[in-house]
């Protein structure tokens, strides 16, 4: 009696433990795995019942033997199907952002630490089988499921299942995955001909005049032809070599994508247009900044900058 709590504790940890939450890994233990006959399995059992009645009617020993062999096969199939899922470890992976209207793709890593190969493991949304793969012994594989998106913002996942009907297809074992995954959905980029804003409030030519000190990047040795306006005179005054002040974006054009320039459009239309512009500007290799009410992202370029801008658009007003 003394050992019982320890034993129960062990059972609790080893056998029935469901979520292994510290690392966000879901381990498919006994309690999480469900099993039920498929439609094919129900048809199969109907066939067995008919054969069994035939065996009784004709008092045919071999027919009995066949019925019992196939019944045994079905029982063995339950075990095999169940074990095909049991013990798998599912790790949700970050979902890459998408534009509204595109499907959000949620990747999962499915890992098997057992020596049994796992075959035909699929991820499904309701009855919609989305992705499936085989796992060799002690290996992992990436599966993904897609959800449709309509609106910008965060797309939360829905409850999906990891399932298998291997080996016989008579039974389906599944486990619900309540994944705390979400996918960032950028606004839908406006389609059609939407040229980037030129001139007014848009392009600033690299004259550097009036550019604020905040754009100051550093000093370099004065070269012949540098504008005298940018010579660091105090250094010269101290008797050093003349230096030229460097400003960001000095070599390229800079573009401001400004919310306020888009009067006459509603919020979503503005966001959609700005989204398109960000995409186009990045594609054109321009440096661009974004001004939204209450937010200003200074001009820059590159994937991270693009993501910052699009994220701001996606989450605007939320």
């Amino acid at each position, binding site marked *: 009696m003394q050992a019982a709590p320890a034993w129960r504790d062990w059972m609790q940890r080893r056998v029935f433990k469901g979520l292994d939450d510290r690392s966000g890994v879901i381990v498919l233990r006994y309690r999480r795995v469900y099993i039920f006959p498929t*439609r*094919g399995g129900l*048809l*199969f059992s109907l*066939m067995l019942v*008919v*054969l069994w*009645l*035939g*065996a*009784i*009617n*004709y*008092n*045919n*020993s*071999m*027919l*009995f*033997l*066949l*019925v*019992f*062999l*196939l*019944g*045994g*096969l079905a*029982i*063995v*199939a339950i*075990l*095999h199907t169940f*074990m095909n899922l049991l013990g798998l470890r599912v790790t949700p992976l970050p979902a890459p952002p998408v534009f509204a209207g595109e499907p959000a793709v949620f990747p999962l890593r499915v*890992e098997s630490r*057992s*020596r*049994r190969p796992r075959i*035909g493991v699929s991820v499904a949304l309701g009855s919609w089988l989305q992705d*499936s793969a085989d796992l060799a*012994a*002690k*290996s*992992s594989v990436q599966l993904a499921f897609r959800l449709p998106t309509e609106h910008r913002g965060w797309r939360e996942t829905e409850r999906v299942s990891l399932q298998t*009907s*291997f*080996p*016989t*297809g008579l039974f389906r074992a599944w486990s619900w995955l309540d994944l705390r995954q979400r996918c960032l959905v950028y606004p839908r980029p406006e389609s059609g001909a939407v040229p980037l804003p030129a001139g007014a409030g848009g392009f600033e030519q690299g004259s550097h005049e009036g550019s604020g000190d905040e754009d100051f990047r550093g000093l370099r040795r004065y070269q012949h032809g540098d504008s005298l306006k940018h010579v660091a005179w105090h250094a010269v005054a101290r008797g050093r070599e003349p230096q030229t002040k460097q400003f960001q974006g000095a070599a390229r054009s800079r573009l401001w994508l400004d919310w306020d320039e888009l009067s006459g459009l509603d919020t979503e239309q503005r966001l959609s247009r700005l989204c398109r512009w960000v995409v186009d500007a990045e594609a054109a290799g321009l440096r661009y900044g974004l001004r939204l009410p209450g937010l200003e992202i200074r001009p820059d370029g590159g994937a991270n900058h693009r993501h910052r801008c699009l994220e701001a658009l996606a989450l605007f007003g939320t």
Partner: protein
Amino acid sequence: MSAKSRHDPLLPLATLVTLLLGMGLVAIPHLLRMPVWITVLVLLCGTWRFLASYRGDALPPTWLRTLLTVATAVGIYGSFGTLLGRDAGTALLLSMTALKLLEMRHKRDTHVVLYLGYFLIGTQFLFSQSLAMVAYLMGTVWVMTVLLLSVHQVPARPRPWLYAGRAASMLVQAVPIMLVLFVLFPRIPGPLWGLPGDAYGAQTGLSETMEPGSISELSRSDAVAFRVDFAGEAPPPHQRYWRGPVLELYDGRAWRRAEAPAAGPPAVEHLGDPLDYAVILQPHHQKWLFALDLPALAPPGASLNAAAEMRTAGAIHEPYRYEMRSHPEFRLDRGLSPGMRQRMLSLPPAAHPQARALAEQWRQTSGSDRELVAAAIVFFRSQPFVYTLSPPPLQQDHVDQFLFETRRGFCEHYAGAFAVLMRAAGVPARVVTGYQGGEINPLGDYLIVRQSDAHAWTEVWLEDSGWQRIDATALVSPERVEQGMGRAVPAGDPIPTMARLDASWIKQFRLGIDAINTGWNRWVLAYGPELQQQVLNQIGLVDWRHTVGAMAATLGLIVALISAYMLFGYRQPTTPPLVALYERFCRKLARRGVDRRPGEGPMDFAARACRSLPAHARQIDEITRLYVLLRYEQAPSPDGIRRLRHLIRRFKPAAAR
């Protein structure tokens, strides 16, 4: 024929071909006994389906499939006269399965085809339960299962044979479950519904009628009628008369059983020592049992009538085992009622004038019935009678022609003619059919009685001694009784292999097979409600609740064992001992919360483990270094492995603080 059209979206070509061949294997035993047009239909459907996948031909449109289905049903009705019953039913099932191949478009359809395959395998058992057929059909069950495993997904797996091992292992795991269910699952006595007339196919064996030619026809068959296990020594051949139907009515040509013979029990006095034995009767689809002349008591479920026939309530459709006691010496019916005597003397008025004349002559020269019978025996012994399987055809009065003209006949000629002569002479007589002889199988120490041992003899009634067996065949050919039909008939008669006497290896081999078949029949095929009850009582499961409990417990145990095997017994034979040791080391660390990540190298893992468990850093380092060293040697030295094993065994990490 584009590359695209070769690709079947449902089944890869290799899987489809395997499916078609597998269904072919299932169909072959059925097709062997079906009208040729069904074979043509099945081949047509299979080929069409193959071409549809191989060349991208279109599958037949719905109207054509419907037309084919209706035409097939009509055809089967035309061939069999019905759509129901065993023969027409399986023909219908087989044709519909073939047609289903032509509309196999979804995964569902593939599954239905495979289930139909299993079903067709089952129906074949209604036609044959021989060991060879069972082995063949179990092979097809395996093929169906391999296919079931390879079509479980869309698209199906392209190489079905990769699942051969898995399917075999699943079936092997199902076998213990099957055995438990077979023995313990409650058997309900059938039939549940009226069996159609063709339920058991053509009959082989004796019937209730005997005409010239009926038994010699049967004698061409090697089929086993029944087998006998004697408790002691088997009786000598001249006592091995196996009593079957007793034929008392005669119409001038055929001998028949009385429609309502007098109810039992027979008035019999048993003399001498009894013989105890058990009979395993092959299904003969009749309502009688055979016993050594003369049975003392009928087994449960059967009864003895006044003519000492053993009758059962229902026909025997399955191998049936019963225990018997017989007395080779007996006195049956010492008194005969006048009505009975009348019946046993009746002859059609105008039949057999020559035989009647001979009988009249005997009557006049004999003082008693006993003398008359002796005169008849002398007649059969002295005249040039020949015992043969192929007697000349008899066209006119068949008894007269046989007795005075051809003098060549088989046992039914002799038994029939002798009974006619006796009745004509005023001695009550009747014909008894059954089997005579049998062969001891030295490999199983039991007696095999075959259809070729079928026999007929005469019983005459004599004052004070009752019915006496007179075997006129034995008068003509004593070898028939002492050595069997194979030795008695002239060379060149079409006797079956097993009735021959030469001890060829074929005969030895077949006796060996028969010994196996006997066990099979006795314990497997004969395992019905009655035998189950006996077996269950024997092992102490008296109540059905006990039985169900025992069944559930055994099944639970089997399932637990299979699960344990799958969880813990799955060894990869390729794991080298070195890796196994290292995995043990990793498990020890994992218990202390240091899990090795997939793909993490041993050195990185060791560094991480040392940080987590600094107290064991030295040991971890030593083990890992040794492991890496051994791992990258061509062949790790046994000393090194021994040392590693020692280190890992001693490695007992305490939990990190």
